[in-house]
């Protein structure tokens, strides 16, 4: 058995080093033996997760249910994966890892674009020796959303850096032509116990907005990205505030806003 086959275990446990990942995935796409093993190992790892079972915090369910209410269910896999239906059993790369694999392919496609956008951040952090994992992290984030890629590629995309009252550096990324906007921060402190960040869209003049519309809420973390769900094309400003958990209907703390 050649060495590459031996990487199935590490691949499933997300333990492959970045340098090996591309090579292994290229191999996986053409090796039914490894594909089958990857599927089996995913089931095995799922069993292993039983040893880690722990009850989530009581408030998390409500928070998750609120979060999904603003999120659209994606249609079934649109491209390149049609062979799923009625495909022969020996078809390479199946099951759970296929989604991962599709993600990785997506990452490769978007890598250059995203690196250009993220160059400043990467440069700053490469001094700490973390450039590789950071890039990997950002690729993962990119892959979670083609919408994000589209947003960054939009001809009229604007990126508005802001500093929140707690000192956090963040940006609004928006495209009126796509009617999409996103809030993003590489390191957003926790909003505090029983608090949440909340996004807003505003219309009318900046000094006297005629409408202030509550939008999605989000928590802190690294590589935070939250899309707006509201109308961007018709808005003049986007903003973020710190609100009680669950969000507010009008802002209760000073807003950090940026023009569109």
């Amino acid at each position: 058995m050649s060495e590459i086959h031996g990487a199935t275990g590490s691949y499933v446990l997300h333990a492959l080093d970045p340098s090996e990942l591309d090579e292994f995935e290229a191999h996986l796409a053409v090796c039914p033996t490894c594909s089958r093993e990857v599927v089996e190992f995913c089931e095995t790892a799922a069993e292993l997760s039983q040893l880690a079972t722990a009850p989530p915090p009581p408030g998390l369910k409500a928070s998750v249910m609120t979060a999904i209410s603003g999120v659209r269910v994606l249609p079934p896999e649109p491209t390149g994966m049609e062979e799923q239906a009625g495909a022969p059993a020996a078809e390479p790369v199946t099951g759970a890892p296929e989604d991962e694999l599709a993600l990785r392919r997506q990452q490769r496609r978007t890598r250059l674009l995203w690196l250009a956008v993220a160059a400043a951040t990467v440069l700053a952090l490469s001094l700490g020796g973390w450039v590789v994992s950071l890039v990997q992290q950002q690729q993962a984030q990119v892959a979670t959303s083609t919408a994000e890629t589209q947003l960054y590629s939009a001809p009229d995309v604007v990126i508005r850096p802001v500093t929140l009252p707690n000192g956090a550096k963040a940006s609004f990324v928006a495209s009126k032509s796509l009617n999409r906007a996103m809030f993003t921060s590489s390191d957003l402190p926790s909003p505090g116990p029983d608090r949440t960040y909340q996004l807003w869209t505003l219309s009318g003049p900046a000094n006297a907005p005629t409408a202030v519309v509550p939008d999605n809420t989000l928590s802190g973390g690294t590589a935070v990205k939250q899309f707006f769900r509201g109308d961007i094309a018709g808005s003049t400003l986007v903003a973020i505030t710190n609100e009680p958990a669950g969000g507010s209907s009008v802002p209760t703390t000073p807003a950090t806003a940026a023009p569109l």
Partner: protein
Amino acid sequence: MNVRAVPGSGGESPRPGPTGGTGREAEAAHLVELMARVSRAHEDAFAELYDLTSARVYGTVLRVLRSTDHAAEVTQEVFVEVWRQSARYVPGKGSVLAWMTTMAHRRAVDRVRAVTSEVSRDERYAVSGIDREVDHVWEGVEQRLDVERVRRGMASLTAIQREALTLAYFGGYTQSQVASLLKLPLGTVKTRIRDGLIGLRDALGVEA
């Protein structure tokens, strides 16, 4: 081993416990049905899916991240992603739980690699820490029959296989980091991780 004879008294935990294979299969089939409804944006089905799987997802993420705040955030991200991608889950290609725990583990690992400094992790796991890590996995786990099965599967592995698996899966380390923690060549670690999964797969009779 403490096998509970009375089902259901424990409240919300995923249903079929001590009934062995059929119980697990019924549970797996039920999760597939739920996913089909979730993919048509039924929030009630999603709420039930959350009830049945959140302890697995959150527990997996928490074990890797060691921070309840981070774990709650990542768990929420995972469930939002499960909702978003629900129509892309293909039942014939693996169980719902494998799909979800793979996603959860991946995100937890991405997060831990982004936020944890190499230095503190090395200190935390400096050799003697490995035993604690391995022990910790065994402690405080509800003694259900399924869990006991996995425990026995892990116990059937060699010590190195078990340590390598534990560090990679529960520790979120790359195979290179595992190699340096265990002071073994990378090729050896890679082989031990794979052999460990093969051993566990065979011990558990996992079918894909």
